[in-house]
Every structure is written in C-alpha cells, then in structure tokens.
C-alpha cells in the first residue's frame, strides 16, 4: 500500500507546489519576498489580507466577479436545459450539425470577440454592467452546458417521459418535477463548469467593464505603484481567487466523477 501511494503523493505535492508558494507569499511582506528565498514566512503578516478586506476597490472586485459569474451560471444553465432536452429527445433536420456548430463556439478564442462585443455592448448601453460580462460569457458556457446536459439527459430513457405524460403530467410539470430531479447531477456539473470558466475568464471581463462591474482580475493588475509591484498583496488576492472555485468543487465532486463515467465532461 505504501509503495503504491508514493507516486500519487509525489504528483500531488508537485501540483500543490505553486499553490503553496502563492499562499506562503501572501503571508509575507513584500520586502521579504524581494529580499530572497525563504520556504516559510519569516515575519508572518496578515497585513495583505487586511488591506484587501478594508479597501472597497479590492473587495468590490470580488463581489463584482461573483455577481456576474453567478448571473452567467444561472443564465447558461437555464438556456442550455431546453436546448439539451431538444437535442436528446428529438430528431430534426440538421440536428447533428447544429450540435457540432454549438461546440465549435466553445473553441472560439475570446480575443476574437472582444472588439465586436465592446462595440455592440457600448451601443446597447450595456457597457460596464454585470449583464454585459454575464452575456459575453454565455458565448462559450452555453455550448458547454448543452453538451454536458445532453449527455445526462440521453441516459434517461424516453419511456420515463411517456410514463409521466400518461400519468397526466403536463410538459412543464414533468420537466420540473420528474425530469430535473433525475438529471440534477448533470445540472450540478454543468453549473460548476460554467462557474469555473466564467470565473477565470479575464479578457472579455476586462474589456467590457470600467468601474462599476470591474472584476477582481482587473483590479489585480493595478497593484503597481511608484514603489513597484506589491507582491504580497497580489499573492493574497490570488489566494482569495482560488477559494470560490475550491468551494464549488467540494460541492460537486461526486457529480463530476459521474459525469466522467458517463463520457461527458
């Protein structure tokens, strides 16, 4: 047993190294970081975190990010649910092509759309709003959510739908009371991926916001001052950025395994 666990332990330690370094740095002073190599913080400080939680420009970055990411997740999953249902249940002209086209949207680099989105959203008075970023991120999140949900829905036999109709369920009632509870794992996985991709996406979020909806990623680029970069502060901000993702992963960890088992994700 010991022999077998050595390699995974080494692998995980290797993966965790940069994260450890980030967390360790966040508890150091900028001077210590710049002065040389140290494995542990020599002078342990919480000043970096205090700075973030007391400065509105800092913590509003987080709040803004969480707001548009949540909006995007809800929007993407709600749009993807009916689409995925149609793909999993009906055959129509060009259904496979349409499905593939949806997936190709996922492959489109965000940079390509930055400029047209900026133009479009500015003219629609959407610039620097949460909705702007949330909508822009649906570009790659809706196809992903459709793809994941379709896989989960396909595993539910069509006979379940028929049984529900025979029992008297109307379509909306069937969808909410019977169908959704049976694919809730899929909804969890889809929501998780939407959350993650929206959370880490920076280019569109930065381009489409100025002040009101500025994401944390944009705030972090402004730590440069006359005294140079405030590395400790930056590391603390980075550490805090990891936390929401870690929390979400904790909640959906079992579902993700099921998603993998079903050939999607």
């Amino acid at each position, binding site marked *: 047993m010991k022999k077998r666990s050595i390699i995974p332990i080494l692998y995980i330690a290797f993966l965790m190294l940069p994260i450890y370094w980030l967390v360790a740095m966040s508890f150091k002073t900028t001077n210590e970081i710049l002065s040389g190599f140290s494995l542990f913080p020599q002078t342990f400080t919480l000043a970096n975190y205090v700075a973030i939680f007391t400065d509105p420009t800092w913590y509003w970055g987080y709040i803004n990010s969480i707001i548009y990411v949540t909006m995007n997740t809800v929007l993407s999953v709600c749009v993807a649910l009916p689409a995925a249902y149609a793909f999993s249940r009906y055959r129509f002209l060009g259904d496979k092509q349409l499905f593939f086209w949806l997936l190709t949207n996922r492959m489109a680099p965000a940079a390509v759309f930055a400029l047209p989105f900026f133009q479009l959203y500015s003219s629609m008075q959407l610039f620097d709003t949460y909705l702007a970023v949330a909508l822009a991120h649906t570009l790659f999140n809706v196809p992903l959510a459709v793809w994941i949900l379709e896989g989960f829905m396909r595993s539910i036999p069509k006979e379940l739908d*028929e049984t529900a109709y025979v029992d008297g369920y109307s379509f909306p009632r069937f969808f909410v009371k019977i169908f959704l509870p049976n694919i809730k794992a899929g909804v969890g996985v889809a929501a998780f991926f939407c959350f993650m991709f929206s959370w880490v996406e920076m280019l569109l979020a930065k381009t489409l916001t100025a002040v009101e909806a500025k994401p944390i990623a944009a705030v972090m680029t402004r730590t440069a001052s006359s005294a140079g970069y405030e590395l400790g502060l930056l590391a603390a901000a980075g550490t805090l950025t990891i936390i929401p993702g870690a929390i979400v992963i904790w909640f959906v960890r079992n579902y993700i395994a099921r998603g993998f088992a079903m050939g999607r994700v």
Partner: protein
Amino acid sequence: MIELQDAVKQVGNVTHIKPTTLTLQAGHFNVLLGATGSGKTSLIKLMAGLDPIAQGRVLMDGQDVTRLNTQKRNISLVHQFFVNYPHMSVFENIASPLRVAGMVESEVQGRVEEAADLLQLRPMLGRRPHELSGGQQQRTALARAIAKESRAVFLDEPLANLDYKLREELREQLPDLFAGRGAVVVYATSEPEEALLLGGHTALMEDGRVTQFGPTADIYRNPENIAAARVFSDPPINLAKITISSAQAQLAGGGSWAVFDATHLPDGEYTVAVRPHRVTPFRTSEADVELTGRVIVTELSGSDSSAHFQHGDDAWVSLATGVHPYQVGEDHSFYMNPAHCRYFGQDGKRVV
C-alpha cells in the same frame, strides 16, 4: 371501449401501422400477439396518444380522442422495461398520477394502500425503485396503473424482462388484478402461450397490421391465413405443400387422405397446417394418416418429447406427451388425424 377507425401511423416515409380498424372491449384481456417489430408497441402508442396519428380516428367510450393529448386520455401504461420515477419512493410513485389529478390526500392514501396490498408491495412503500428487485419494480408500475383506475390500461410486454418464475407468478395474477375494474386492458406479447393463458380476445399482428381479431380460442382454432397460424403456434406449426384433386389430399413425401367437406375445392396446390401436438408417434384414431420420416433432432421437455423429422422435402415437428424412444437418424412412423388439418390456398388464405 377503444375503437380504431382506419388508424395509420407514419414516421417520415415509413408506415408503422397500416390502416387498422379494431374495437377493443372492457371486461376481458385484449392481447396483441405478434413477433418483435410487428407493430404492437406502435399500436399501443397510437392508442395512448404518445405518437401522432397520420390518418383515421381513435375513439374511447364513443368519444373521439384522435386529437386529445395523452394527459387527458385517462389511461395507464406499463412498459416492458421497469419504468418508475427513480427519485420518488414506491408510495410516491403509485400516488403520482393521483396527486397530479389533484385528489385529496386521504383518498390518495387509501388507493395507494389498496394497490400496494394487491401487489404485495406494502413493506416496500418507503423504498426507492432502485432498491427493489425487477419483479417488485414492475409490480410498482402495475400498482400505479391500478391505483389510477383509468379507463384503459396498456401493458406492453410487461413480463418480458422478468425471470421465468416471476413471470408465471405475475401472469397468473394479472387477470384478477384487472377483473371488475371496467378498464379496457390491452396486453402486448410475442408469446402465443401468454395469449392463451390470459384468454379474452386476441389480435394477431404482423408487419404493422392486425391480421385477425376475435376470441382467443377461436383464433387459435381457426387461423384465417398461414401468417396467423404461424404466429399463434409454439413450437412452430407444421406447414407442408399438398396437392388436392377430387377432394383427396396428397403429400409430396407420401401419405394421402380425404379432405373433409372440400368437394367444392378446385384441384391444385395447397398448404396444409397441422399443430405439432397433433402429430404423434402413436395412432390416435382410425382415420390417422401415417407419415414416415427420418428423425433429425429430438428434445425432451418435462414429460413431453418432441421430434423433428424429415418427410419428403418438408421438415415436420411432432410433440407428444410421454417419453418416446426416438433414434436420431432412423425412420419412425408418425400419425396425424386429418380432422385437425387446416388448408390454405396459394395466396395464404384459409380454404374450407
């Protein structure tokens, strides 16, 4: 009562159900008997309103339901695969159609418990479907159909996925479960034996059409065409080419007899059909025709023995009670009473 009037089901260019007219009554089982792919499920879905009807009409108790949604037809359906709501307990599963209909809770409770008692599900009411055996899962689906007290119950090969013992057990129970409920019971199966055991009426299905419909025993005794005779026989019915001249039948491989009541039959080629159990290794009457043939395969099942033998160009099957000492590869004599023969013309239709 369910009436189909020239009902047609089409998907794209493929016709799944050819124009079908059929009247199914309550009070007894209506069995749809046919091989896999003969259109039994298609016909059920058509009656249930799950698939759109291309032409014709469907009536339930005289009311035209052709354009009525499944939800409003007040029917029940049990699939071949055990379909229950996985996220609900057995109780919730049985109660679900009642709850949807907005029934008061006290009555829901009573109906569910009554159905659960009938199907011996009382101890499982609190469990989830996936915690039950296959037989219990299917009984849950049946209980849901019974508790609903709908005017039509469609059972689409409900026993096909159960093991032999459970199947027998449940099959025995089925007629009692639905007796006196006033619902039209439609039961699809591919096994002739089930049709005979369940009684009532049988509709023989082949290639998307009902080839014959009537009381099960009548259909068994008097198949209208070769297809019907073939569908309703297990082991397969013996079919052999004969020539009839002056009301005298002649088998190609030897053996001849007088065809009863066939004086008007024009001379020519015909097909004779005899059920395997009417071909025995011993004489059953004076009129018996002797067939001699080489035994190819023998089987023993319980106290029955069957023999496949070659007679002329035709392969015959004999099924007789008792254990008979056949020697594979040797010639044996078999006897057939011409009174049990059915004759079909070149077009496959029954003559005489």
